[in-house]
């Protein structure tokens, strides 16, 4: 599945965690490749290793064995500073619990990654408003998370993830705290962004609604890839 457009490449990845006196193997010999513009999902029951794999790809964690290359950079060998830089420029995160900064307005939340990039104020403001318009929340720019619904908060989180036009967006159970209508709205937004911006989306989910939108489904079971299938869209 390798191509010149490879954004993520995982080779013989093993991740273990200490658990008392023993070690728990969360990922065991994972081999996967993702190309730019994919709309893929890691699917499986709780404890199958979805979030762990997502965290390693997101450079928030490192492999115990094997290698994870993200945008050509080996996650295990990255310094903290370089990992932070990679996250800031190339990777967007969407979390199950939205993880918006509570004291910031929607606009300030979306602006945050651009502040870290030291983008100038004019470009920053333009990019933020554009991102909020993509997710249909331009009118809520000054609202704080506490003043918005769960669906709106997740849309702000999506705007924050895509405002920097990252290569990869990692979404961990993005619809788990949303009702069906909001879930579909969010997923349609992400599909639209995937098509328009060519951003690679990688989900960790066991939500059937999300699975319905995926074009590649990787089933994980006990830390191993059980199946990896391309979904044909009619």
């Amino acid at each position, binding site marked *: 599945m390798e191509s010149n457009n490879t954004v993520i490449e995982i080779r013989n990845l093993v991740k273990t965690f200490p658990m008392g006196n023993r070690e728990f193997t969360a990922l065991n010999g994972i081999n996967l490749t993702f190309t730019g513009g994919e709309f893929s999902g890691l699917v499986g029951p709780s404890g199958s290793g979805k979030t762990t794999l997502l*965290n390693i790809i997101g450079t*928030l964690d490192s492999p115990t064995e094997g290698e994870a290359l993200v945008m050509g950079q080996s996650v295990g060998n990255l310094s903290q500073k370089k990992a*932070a830089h990679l996250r800031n420029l190339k990777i967007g995160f969407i979390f199950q619990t939205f993880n918006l*900064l509570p004291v*910031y307005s929607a606009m300030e939340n979306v602006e*945050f990654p651009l*502040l870290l990039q030291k983008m100038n104020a004019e470009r920053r403001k333009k990019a933020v408003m554009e991102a909020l318009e993509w997710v249909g929340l331009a009118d809520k720019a000054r609202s704080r998370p506490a003043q918005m619904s769960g669906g709106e908060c997740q849309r702000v989180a999506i705007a924050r993830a895509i405002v920097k036009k990252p290569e990869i967006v990692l979404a961990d159970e993005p619809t788990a705290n949303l009702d069906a209508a909001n879930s579909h709205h969010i997923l349609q937004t992400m599909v639209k962004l995937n098509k328009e911006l060519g951003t690679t989306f990688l989900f960790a989910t066991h939500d059937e609604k999300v699975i319905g939108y995926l074009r590649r489904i990787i089933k994980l079971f006990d830390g191993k890839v059980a199946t990896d299938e391309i979904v044909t869209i009619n």
Partner: protein
Amino acid sequence: MLTFKLAIRNLVGAGLRTWLNVFVLSLSYVVIIYMNGMLDGWNRQAKTDMIHWDTGQGQLWQKNYDPIDPFTLQNSFGPIPGELNNLVKEGQIAPVLITMASFYPEGRIQSILLKGISENQKVIDLPTASMIGDSTEIPGLVGKRMAQSNRIKVGDLITLRWRDRNGTFDAADVRVAAIFDTNVPTVDGGQIWIPLARLQKMLQAPGEATLLIRGKSEWPSFNSDGWVSKDLKTLTADIDQIIKSKSMSSAVMYLILLMLAMLAIFDTQVLSIFRRQREIGTQIALGMTRWQVVKLFTVEGAMHGVLAAILAAIYGIPFLASQARFGIPMPKATDSMGLAVAERIFPVYSIGLIIITIVFVLITATIVSYLPARRISKMNPTEAIKGRIQ
């Protein structure tokens, strides 16, 4: 710059929580400055009053005079050096003659110090001019506390008994001419002041004195045989010692208040970390380095200190200034502590005290913000994002 921008944004965004922390910290500034200003003012006032009421700028003691041993008083007076007579007449030097005596308040016998002082002296604040008069009666001055403890009023007759220089007992009545109010117990408790000439006559010691008090002008050259010079430093050594020991207790108080301020902000910051754990994990996920997070929290803590200093200035300056102007009323019982205590203490706030306090609280706020922030940097971001307490 980014750190400052984010810190300001966080502080503004936190709204009431920020202002509550800032207010508590500002109280630390004001209380520390107030307490130390009060102790400093108290100490300074006690010493100044002692100089104004008791010691003057310097004294000459008759060589046998020992204020700690009252039994030496009988032999502790000598002729006032002739070279000083003009200054004595002008009131620039105040001769004082001291002897032991007894008086009989409400049928009791009580030992006192009987002190004679020239009525026209301008050296100390004792209202000696109120004893000037042609009456054949002996006019006397009594301090307010002495008067209160013995129920003496202006115009009362006090019967005194004393021994002259030959050891002969004698007695006379003193008419109380005035009751003076002073903060200095050494001129008040257990003593009665009468005109110098009268006491010289009573003791059969004309032209003699136990000690001489000078004002601001230096001693002229004179034959100092039989007299020992005591400079201001020697005369105020006791009160300086008390002030020094009080300064130690002030320093302890200062440190305690500082520790309380430290604890308050430390507590706030530690709580903040646990509460903002998910936020911190998110910031790291969005591309902040761990060091940037440490910096952000440290700067936030320091900014609490700066904002608190500004807030403290807004309400603290008028409060502290009014205290310095109108003084702090003190209970009379504080006299029993042995240090001259005024009815009102006027706090003194030195620039040094204010600057040191601000710098100390700022540094403290920064350090106690840095320590928990450093802990954040060791958190596993994947756990922090989920808000799991580690």
